[in-house]
């Protein structure tokens, strides 16, 4: 009986690997990355052989949200500050809803201000909008609930929760002056297009070169020594986003990496590098999608949502 079960597990696992969007085994060898990408050589005393694209920002190209110092000193301002606290330290100020080691600002970089880093000021005026994921029109509140369920692997605050109101108020304050219903430059994530098939092996090399420094060899981030959560957030493992979240889509993760990683060097990775590292991260362990059963998750650990 037990042997039959194990056989089934084996069969399902093989099947599962078979339906990966990449045929990792065949295509991994099509390119000897060590020849083309000198950054993968250990020695750092070499001369440039390849110049990648330069991302130029003109002044005024992106929306500039108001300064934190300008939060008014009234009850509205209190709500904004509460929202900002929750946003930047979710594990502290929204502990009852947060389920992992991430904060809102782990994905919405620089307190939700960074263009191409899913900025809040570009999101506020877009909701309510139709979302393909849910196939309904969702309000900002419902979108925030999804963030808590999937990206934070936690519990959704109710629509009338003070935390929810604070987050919406913070978002509104941050969007001061942004037009409603208009796609602002820098909204969401940048586009990434694919030129060749993805290869998690190349992705692993990219990860070790560019990401490991902060996110750690095991992808579990780096914690503060004083126990106050993560200095650099985990990108996989039990304390990271779950399989239902947006970043678990390879293309979305690649977009995020392309537009934001490494910090201060956005757009430095090529599209292909971003996609390769994204699929490498996609293949790692993380909490299951709460909308999917344990059994499904066991047999199809990387099934698309």
């Amino acid at each position, binding site marked *: 009986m037990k042997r039959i079960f194990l056989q089934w597990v084996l069969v399902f696992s093989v099947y599962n690997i078979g339906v990966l969007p990449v045929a990792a085994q065949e295509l991994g060898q099509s390119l000897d990355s060590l020849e083309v990408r000198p950054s993968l050589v250990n020695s750092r005393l070499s001369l440039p052989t390849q110049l990648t694209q*330069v991302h130029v920002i003109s002044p005024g190209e992106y929306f500039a949200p108001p300064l934190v110092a300008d939060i008014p000193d009234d009850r509205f301002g209190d709500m904004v500050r509460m929202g900002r606290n929750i946003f930047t330290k979710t594990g502290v100020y929204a502990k009852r809803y947060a389920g992992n080691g991430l904060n809102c600002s782990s994905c919405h970089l620089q307190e939700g201000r960074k263009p191409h880093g899913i900025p809040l000021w570009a999101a506020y005026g877009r909701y309510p909008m139709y979302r393909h994921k849910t196939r309904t029109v969702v309000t900002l509140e419902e979108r925030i609930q999804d963030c808590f369920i999937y990206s934070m692997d936690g519990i959704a605050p109710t629509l009338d929760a003070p935390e929810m109101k604070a987050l919406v108020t913070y978002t509104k304050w941050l969007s001061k002056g942004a037009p409603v219903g208009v796609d602002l430059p820098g909204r969401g994530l940048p586009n990434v297009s694919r030129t060749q098939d993805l290869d998690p092996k190349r992705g692993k090399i990219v990860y070790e070169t560019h990401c490991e420094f902060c996110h750690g060899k095991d992808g579990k981030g780096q914690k503060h020594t004083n126990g106050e959560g993560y200095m650099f957030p985990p990108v996989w493992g039990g304390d990271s986003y779950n399989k239902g979240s947006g970043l678990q889509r390879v293309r979305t993760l690649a977009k995020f990496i392309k537009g934001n990683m490494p910090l201060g*060097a956005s757009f430095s990775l090529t599209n292909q590098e971003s996609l390769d590292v994204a699929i490498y991260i996609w293949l790692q362990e993380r909490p299951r999608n709460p909308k999917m059963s344990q059994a499904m998750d066991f047999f199809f650990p990387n099934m698309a949502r």
Partner: protein
Amino acid sequence: MKSSSNIKRSLVSRLKNMSVWSMFLFLLFLSFIIFLIQSVLPISSSSHNLHRLAGEQLALNGRGNIPACVPCHGLQGQGNAGIASPRLAGLHPDYIKKQLEDYARDPLRTRAVVEPIARDYIKTPRTYGDLTVFTPGTRYDPKMNSLAKLLSAEDRHNLAIYYSNLAFVASPKAYDFETLERGEDLALRGKPEYGLPSCNSCHGPKGQGFRAIFPPLAGQPVTYIIAQINKWQTGKRDNDHLALMRNIADQLTDGDKVNVAAYYDNLSYSVNSE
């Protein structure tokens, strides 16, 4: 929480199921472990102390050609704002070691001169995303370059251990409110509209540094921080990982440097002191 409580529960159940014999064996094993830890700790601690004392000796008195460190870095390793000399007390030992190595390293003679990045970034701000231009891992300083070459690997280790164990308590200095406000904005939020991340996103939530990889900014002299950013911008310092710091320094205006350095100088900060 969940996993630790699980472990506890399983441990308890195992203990209940164990016979007296296995209990005895377990206790024997436990005492062996404790003995091991007790015997190893003093050794490691005393070796540590030896390194620290050797480092102290070198820092205070120098040796042969090697001058003492204290004239520039202060008796307590607190640095000297007058000559833009950094605080060393409480820095991560690996960081100190790496800097000394980089000081000692010869820059390549055939170093390619890359077109300098436009400094007037208010007019033409740009992020140079070119990370395939490798940093040679060098750090230029008229005094330290020659000096660091005299140090052996042992010396560097000793000095690192010594300085990393020194206590330091910052004495926050007063600045005008506007400077601090702008400095805080840069330190906590950067300039997102120009793709510039905040200082604290790498240097720790209070600028206290993070492990060996990101040095502290809090408790460093204002002059030192400004001088270093200038060095990043002019290419005289080039020893970061993935050109992270170079990319960021390239976008800082002269005002930014002053504001953010003042902000960190205004923070209260202490290390190695209860």
